[in-house]
């Protein structure tokens, strides 16, 4: 389990990365924290000609307050969020989720941008950032574009990256004062990838009530308007009005055929909603 030979570059800015990506010929792989790519290289599942290490790029570690949102660079680590080096604008949602990712050693190096781009369906960020309505910004030869996190993931291990493009930042909206969130993931052991994820956000000030069911075979199931599941969203204890049967239909419609898988995913969502009251 040793990687094939590859060339290695550690550019100082995004422009230099884009220049390397623009070169014809060699297969290029970007590496941020390397927590997924490292093992994949060792197992030779990935055999790049050139590995571009983007961990030294200052821009990708910047955090900017945009007033109604916070923007952080792609190389912000899970630990940066867990330890609140990135200011929290989510009533503790992101730090809490960060704290439950894998193990601390992984969180010290693993990055949000890397996780989203690796696009593992059972990872945490794709589900939780979808729940809070985050967006990602991609930069490429024809400039920048910004899309919703859930649209960035096309499928298992497949991100919407066009030729020559890279993810540079994520934008997380500041939640309203009365926002409530909940997150639940089912793992067999501490640090394991999830088998079912439920995420919930109600932010009445911004007119948001959405749920996400993650750790599916592919993209998380995002229900942007959760009224079908939660009535008008004003119940004091939402889990009591939560419509499990409707949730089961949504999951089934998304292609999850196995009844026990549907059960665990619906329960994960219900528990996420329950937790919105204890958070």
């Amino acid at each position, binding site marked *: *389990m*040793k*990687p*094939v*030979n590859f060339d290695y570059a550690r550019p100082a800015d995004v422009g230099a990365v884009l220049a390397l990506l623009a070169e014809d010929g060699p297969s290029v792989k970007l590496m941020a924290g390397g927590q997924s790519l490292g*093992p994949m290289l060792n*197992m*030779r599942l990935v055999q790049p000609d050139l590995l571009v290490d983007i961990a030294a790029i200052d821009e990708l570690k910047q955090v900017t307050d945009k007033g109604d949102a916070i923007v952080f660079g792609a190389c912000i680590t899970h630990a940066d969020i867990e330890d609140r080096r990135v200011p929290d604008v989510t009533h503790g949602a992101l730090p809490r989720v960060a704290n439950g990712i894998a193990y601390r050693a992984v969180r010290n190096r693993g990055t949000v941008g890397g996780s989203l781009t690796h696009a593992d369906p059972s990872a945490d960020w794709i589900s939780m950032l979808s729940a809070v309505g985050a967006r990602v910004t991609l930069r490429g030869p024809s400039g920048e574009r910004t899309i919703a996190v859930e649209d960035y993931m096309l499928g298992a291990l497949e991100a919407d990256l066009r030729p020559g493009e890279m993810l540079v930042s994520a934008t997380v909206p500041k939640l309203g004062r009365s926002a409530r969130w909940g997150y639940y993931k*089912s793992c*067999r*052991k*501490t*640090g*394991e*990838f999830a*088998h*079912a994820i439920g995420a919930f956000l109600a932010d009445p000030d911004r007119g948001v009530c959405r749920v996400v069911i993650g750790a599916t075979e592919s993209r998380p199931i995002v229900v942007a308007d959760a009224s079908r599941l939660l009535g008008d969203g004003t119940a004091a204890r939402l889990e009591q009005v939560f419509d499990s049967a409707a949730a089961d239909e949504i999951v089934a419609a998304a292609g999850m055929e196995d*009844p*026990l898988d549907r*059960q*665990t995913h619906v*329960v*994960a969502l219900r528990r996420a909603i329950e937790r919105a009251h204890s958070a």
Partner: protein
Amino acid sequence: MKNQGVGASMLRKEDDRFLRGRGQYVADLRLPGMKDVAFVRSPLAHARIAGVRIPDEMRDRVYVAGDLKGVKPIVAVSGLAGFKVSEQPVLAFEKVRQVGELIAVCVGTSRAEAEDIAATVELDLDELPALHDMIEARKPGAALVHEHWGDNVFLETFVDVNMEAAYDAPIKVTREISTARQSMAPMEGRGTVAYWDKRLEQLVLHTGSQMPHIVRTGLAECLGLGQEQVRIVSPDVGGGFGYKGILLPEDICLAFLAMKLDHPVRWIEDRREHLTAGANCREHHYIITGYADRDGKLRGIECEATVDSGAYSSYPFSACLEAAQIASILPGPYDFPSYRCRTWSVSTNKCPILPYRGVARTGVCYALELVLDAIAREAGIEPHEVRLKNLVQPEQMPFDNITRKHFDSGDYPEALHRAMAAIDLAGIRARQQQGEPDGRLIGIGHSIYCEQGAHGTSVYAGWGIPMVPGHEQATARMTPDGGLEIRVGVHSHGQSMETTLPQVANEILGIDTAKIKLVHGDTEYTPYSTGSWGSRCAVMAGGAVATAAREVAGLAKGIGAHLLQADVADVKLVDGHVVGPHGSVSLETVAFTWYRRPQDLPASVDPRGLESTIGYKPVRDSGTFSYAAHAVVVAVDPEMGDIEILDYVIVEDGGKLINPMVVDGQIYGGLAQGIGTALYEEMNFDASGQPLASTFADYLLPGPTEVPAPRVDHMETLAPYTEFGVKGIGEGGAIAPPAAIGNAVNDALRRFGAELLHSPMTPRRVLEAIQAAKTASAASQVKQGEFA
């Protein structure tokens, strides 16, 4: 001097280097000119080898079966009647019989380069139907792993003791129970560095091994070398658990290359190789019936047990140890009059099954103890009451059971009583009545087993495998400054023998353990031994060290008596001094005199000096019987299927404990592995025989947050036949947890009428069991409705 003898909970001597990261493992070895090796392994479970194409420019760096002139395959025969012999080729030819089987070996300047070379080798394989299911493999007409056998059964055994007398029992409970294939997963995998020592004309293998002498014997036989031409060095070893007792084809390849090439070669097993190609264990299947009276008194046990032995019989334990052991140990610690057991060791297209901590005991305990709980539910009494009715009683000891196992001593009911009191059965039953605020279901379960350890010649001669333990030898040798060297052929890799064997010597000689050094892990410097396996080292090596130390004590007294001008009959050895009627002399002085001032000694001095190599066997070598009762409380999440361990109690009897803290450590480690078996670890295969877990992302091991801190209580019933009354306990911790946890889970699920009968008890299996019980219950209600 603080008490450092037998019974002292001394801190471990070896921890100083381990805790500072100064352990020396095979992979730490750097030799000039050393090259790395990677293997071309079979990607298919069963195939004919039509061709192996090596690019011309790589031809001198790649070796295939045809290059291994004079190298014999690995053959591990059992003497049991009807055993069919397999030949495990060092490099496959004609056919491959498992994924990961070696086809070619490549030599590079680094492991990465060796892997690059391996990637250039093209295989032309004609796929054959693969056997991944031992029950299917047993059936007539199945594809054949070894064509000339005519079937796929290494060995079938049958034992019957008056079975039919039990058939009129009012309670008859039959269950189909199985345990998953597992991997031992020590922190350090296998690894070997080999070179040819030109000066000594000797092949030197540095390899992490539990049994260096057995590896030397097996290797010399495969290579056609004299045994004096082979030296095995086993340095620090990061966990063995059975896997590092095995002679691997990889070792033989490395040895061959070392003899052929002019430089050292190295292979460090990676985790994918470990999981998919080498280290498999545990896969059992039982159809087991318990017969009992209404009060839970057992009338008999009847069982058909099948073990997936994999493609080859591995050296030295053979392919049948596991299944044949099932037949002999299934009755557990119980006394009942009727017994029948048929076993099959089945060959499939998987890697050979290897003995893992507890060997067959873990599966046997799981099968039997689950059935006992099912009998309790059928009889409507508490499970521990059923056990108390059937356990061998202390007044029966020593007791020869229905399979003629000789239980040496102990009070099994007392262990169970203590465990049930500690876990608070009544309190848990009351809590179950109340229900949990979070909706989880509480279950309480327990299990009890006995563990035969240090079984010797009389037992293993019967198996007839390549390795039969005889007298265990040790050398004790005083140094000129009054210290002591102990040399043993067993290997310490977690057993803490660098601490405990000096404690044994200290008990007899009174020498400070700081001045007692254990030499082990090198065939050049230690007496022949079958090594570390079968919970034998404390009993066998401990006994040997005690015996050798006593010899040295006698010799020292002789010299001491001379120096004291006393008669040897009038001197004693006390706290490291020879004490006579009119004075005393230290062992330092005795040693100094023997080695450095021989002019002070009389002509009649015993020429053996201050050194003894001597063998030891217990008074009876049928094995010590340690035992333990485990009791556990779990919470089961009926919606997600998750299981959490809330409390865990172990009441254990290891006879005299040389170092109680070390015993606790053994129990904790065993428990962690038992929890792995119970809840996490599973090596699955698909229908084409492909192993489905190749990393620890797929093969789950319990971590620190999954292993509770158990409450451990010790009984100390001395073994009647061993030095100090010591019993072997090395494997016990890993035996009982799947059974105890399984019974607790089934207790929690009782309200659904659900039962889990397969380990690991994954969330998925919990939910399936609940689902199946609900479906069955709905169906039976419909039926009752029809009749109403």
